[in-house]
């Protein structure tokens, strides 16, 4: 970005601030590479940069935005002034203030900061040739694992995302490196075809593509074992959830369910349960964009709010929703650093970042040993929220039977988990002492507005309906 553009954005925001209660500009850009290799084919391409700027104005009653990919300072100034000339200040709810930045009286706090992720292996410093060689080696090791592997694919992507926020006295820059790695192993015995995968993602560098021999072997072995997987008998089961399943439960239940933009829409049942017990007392849950290395991490959100953790559930009690500026204004509610947009062409909503249950004290092996008859659910594939009905849907790639406290080796695939959120969360009888955040995935608002997130937690023992 040029100094001329930085200056132009600051001047334009200054002009807008003189006429409206709130004005800001967010400039976004990204660079990076995405690589795939299946042995027969290789590709390496630039990530789609989606560069652009969005100007936001709160006119006193509604938010108005102008977004463009045109970054020429002169063109931009003409367009923004033409757009702003059509807006009129109006009367409406006061703008939400930010308790974390000293704005208790609505006075903007002056803040100039420059943040950046430091990766162990900076993707920009690793030659593309070396990346391709490493990934080809992994692909070939995966393909050679067993003759029944009909396809082994490796995918890697890194993005260096640059953002500049100007507004309310803040001039914030951040550079976030976000990488993901995925290895897919498709197996066939001539009749049945199955797959298993290994996925990782974080605000990390090329180190994300390190895969141990043990991880590769387990991925291949699981894919082969899934050839024998059967269908689970529908019913209610004692369940042990691995951290990926725990994370999706957190994400779909009191993650989506407490996005504050749903409150003024009357869509969040949780609005009626603030400060009430909604989960077992052993459950604590957070959303935290400030976790180093988390796939959903950043230093400030798309509305200039500095990253910090939000505790959503404390000892099973719902204590705080997550918000963006609009929802904190209209709900109204407490501002948290969760204002995110898919890209400059899309609106900001209250969105999750890294969402998780915090660990307890029971070793995972002890959790499984405590189940007489149940299912160990592994590898979350997807989930869907229901913030008003508090239904929950998620799909595990597979589950393994537990009998008399031991895994039997019998697999079921896929396994669907459905239930009523408070029933599921209140049924938790053990919280593992382990903890894992699973990244590399995106989260939608309904079926759109995709943003990178992670979710996770410890192993959990609970009851759920499987099918």
């Amino acid at each position, binding site marked *: 970005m040029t100094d001329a553009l930085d200056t132009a954005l600051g001047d334009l925001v200054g002009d807008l601030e003189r006429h409206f209660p709130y004005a800001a500009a967010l400039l976004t850009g990204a660079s990076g*590479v995405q690589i795939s290799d*299946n042995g*027969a*084919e*290789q*590709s*390496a*391409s*630039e990530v789609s*940069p989606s*560069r652009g700027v969005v100007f936001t104005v709160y006119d006193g*009653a509604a*938010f*108005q935005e*102008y*977004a*463009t*990919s*045109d*970054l*020429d300072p002169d*063109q931009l100034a003409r*367009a923004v002034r033409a*757009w702003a000339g059509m807006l009129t200040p109006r009367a409406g709810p006061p703008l939400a203030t930010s308790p974390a930045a000293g704005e208790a009286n609505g006075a903007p706090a002056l803040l100039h900061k420059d943040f950046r992720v430091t990766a162990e292996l900076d993707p920009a410093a690793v030659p*593309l040739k070396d990346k*391709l060689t490493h990934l080809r080696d992994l692909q070939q090791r995966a393909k050679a694992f067993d003759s029944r592997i*009909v*396809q082994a694919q490796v995918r890697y992507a890194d993005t260096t995302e640059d953002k500049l926020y100007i507004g309310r006295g803040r001039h914030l820059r951040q550079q976030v490196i976000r990488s993901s790695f995925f290895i897919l192993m*498709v197996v*066939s015995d001539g009749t049945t*075809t*199955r*797959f298993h995968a290994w996925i990782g993602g974080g605000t990390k560098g090329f180190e994300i593509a390190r895969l141990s021999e043990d991880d590769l072997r387990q991925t291949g072995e699981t894919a082969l074992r899934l050839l024998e997987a059967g*269908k689970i008998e*529908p019913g209610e089961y004692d369940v042990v959830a691995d951290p990926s399943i725990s994370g999706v439960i957190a994400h779909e239940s009191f993650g989506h369910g407490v996005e504050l933009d749903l409150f*003024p*829409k*009357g869509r969040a049942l949780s609005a009626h349960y603030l400060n009430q017990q909604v989960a077992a007392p052993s459950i604590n849950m957070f959303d935290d964009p400030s976790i180093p290395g988390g796939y959903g991490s950043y230093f400030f959100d798309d509305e200039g709010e500095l990253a910090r953790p939000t505790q959503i559930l404390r000892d099973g009690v719902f204590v705080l929703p997550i918000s963006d500026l*609009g929802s904190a204004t*209209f709900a109204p509610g407490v501002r948290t650093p969760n204002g995110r947009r898919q890209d400059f*062409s899309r*609106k900001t909503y209250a969105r999750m970042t890294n969402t998780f249950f915090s660990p307890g004290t029971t070793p995972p092996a002890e959790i499984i040993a405590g189940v007489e008859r149940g299912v160990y659910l592994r590898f979350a*594939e997807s*989930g*869907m929220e*229901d913030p*008003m*009905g508090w*239904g929950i*849907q998620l*799909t595990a790639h597979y589950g393994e039977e537990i009998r008399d406290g031991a895994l039997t080796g019998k697999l079921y695939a*896929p396994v*669907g988990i*459905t239930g009523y959120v408070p029933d599921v969360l209140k049924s938790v009888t053990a919280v593992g002492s382990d903890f894992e955040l699973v990244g590399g995935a995106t989260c939608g608002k*309904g*079926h*759109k507005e995709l943003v990178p997130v992670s979710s996770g937690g410890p192993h959990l023992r609970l009851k759920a*309906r*499987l*099918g």
Partner: protein
Amino acid sequence: MTLPTHALHASALDPELLAAVASTTPGASDWRIEILHEEEAQLYVIGDHVEARRTVANERARLAVYNDHAPKDPDAGSVARGVTGLTLLAADVADPTHLAARLREAVTVAGLTDNPPFPLPTMPADGYPSVVTVDPVLAGDLAAPLDETMARLEAAVAEQDGVRLSSAELYATRASRSLRNSHGLTAAGRGTGVMLDFVLIASESGREAEMHGEFERRRLADLNVEALIKLYASYARHSLRATAPTTHRGPVVISGAAVAELFNQRLEFGGGPFRLHASAEAAYQHISQFEPGAFISREEPRGDRLTVLSDPLRPFGTQSYAFDAEGLPARRLTIIENGVFTHRWADTRYAAYLGIEATGAFANITIVPGTTPLRALRDVSAGPIYEVSAFSFFNPDPISGDFVVEIKLGYRHDERGTQPIKGGSLSGNLFAAFGDAHFSAETYTDGAYLGPAAIRFGDLSISGS
């Protein structure tokens, strides 16, 4: 509100300029340039209050640069083809030195990857077909039609007893696209689109239930707001009194938006198993389960036989095109006929790899309807029938076709009448299910899917209470 009429550096993203630079870049064996220009108005409403208005202007050029070189593996033939993609904005092309450097860098990247050689498409001898993708209503001010549509929506909701509007989002878009490649292919086209997303809440005796709808169309007139509100208001009211289903194995009817989801999963989630397994790419990568000449259900179907077409020529189809991403002309293609897999869809690359004809990208999906009236599919003379009208999120295993999905709203039909259900899950295998299926004579469309309004499957499982 009118979109600002500022220049988007149209001259800077001039395809002639980009083509000239690409043609003179050393090592660029081939190239493809696509220039996209989009304008969009967005309106967001909470209840009767406007939450936000947005205007968006976005222009970019997407380039694919190819480099032919000796492969790293000496057993891989004499020539390997590498390809890389890059995206350029106006600012990238304003400086000729910078632009030339970006293209040289792209050649270097392409030179690092090895693939079996493949050609690019050439200009079709008969040119491109005429496909209707532009709504004249969206040619001018984009924001005004949004306000008019929102007013209609609010009026339609007001007519529904016990139902209110929670929130709505409306987008109106117009876009233009131009394409050319190093083999002399040139194409240009325009399109429009509208997107409506709304949530209705039904209330009764202190209880509430919501129903969410999301719709995309090319043409504003195809967004029948009044009919959609009436239908989704009834869904919301039914959801209020829905109970959990009982566990069941046997016939299940899937209808409406849910039946379209079986075939037409959103592209951002991979496009779904039918699109995947019918592709030449999946065949080349040894993951397709479809064998030409074989039943997709693996067994001879007992009921109606599935016929599936990819149809880019459908007027105002949301996935209609005159030319696809690489410039292949639109053509209608029968993928599955009477339950038997007949043709793979293929781009130029995978067509070359498999030695088959390039067909162009998969487009709108058309399913030939059956002859059975919908009411007959719900016939309960042989026992209760479950019907699923809305899934929470249909996301089948892309490789096996196995699925487990929560029932967002459905119905149990029995001799006592019809009772709404929700919760629990429906499971089965997407391909095997067509071994015993009956299609309604009535049809449904969601802009991309056009086919039976309901399908009765003989053997699916419901996990309920």
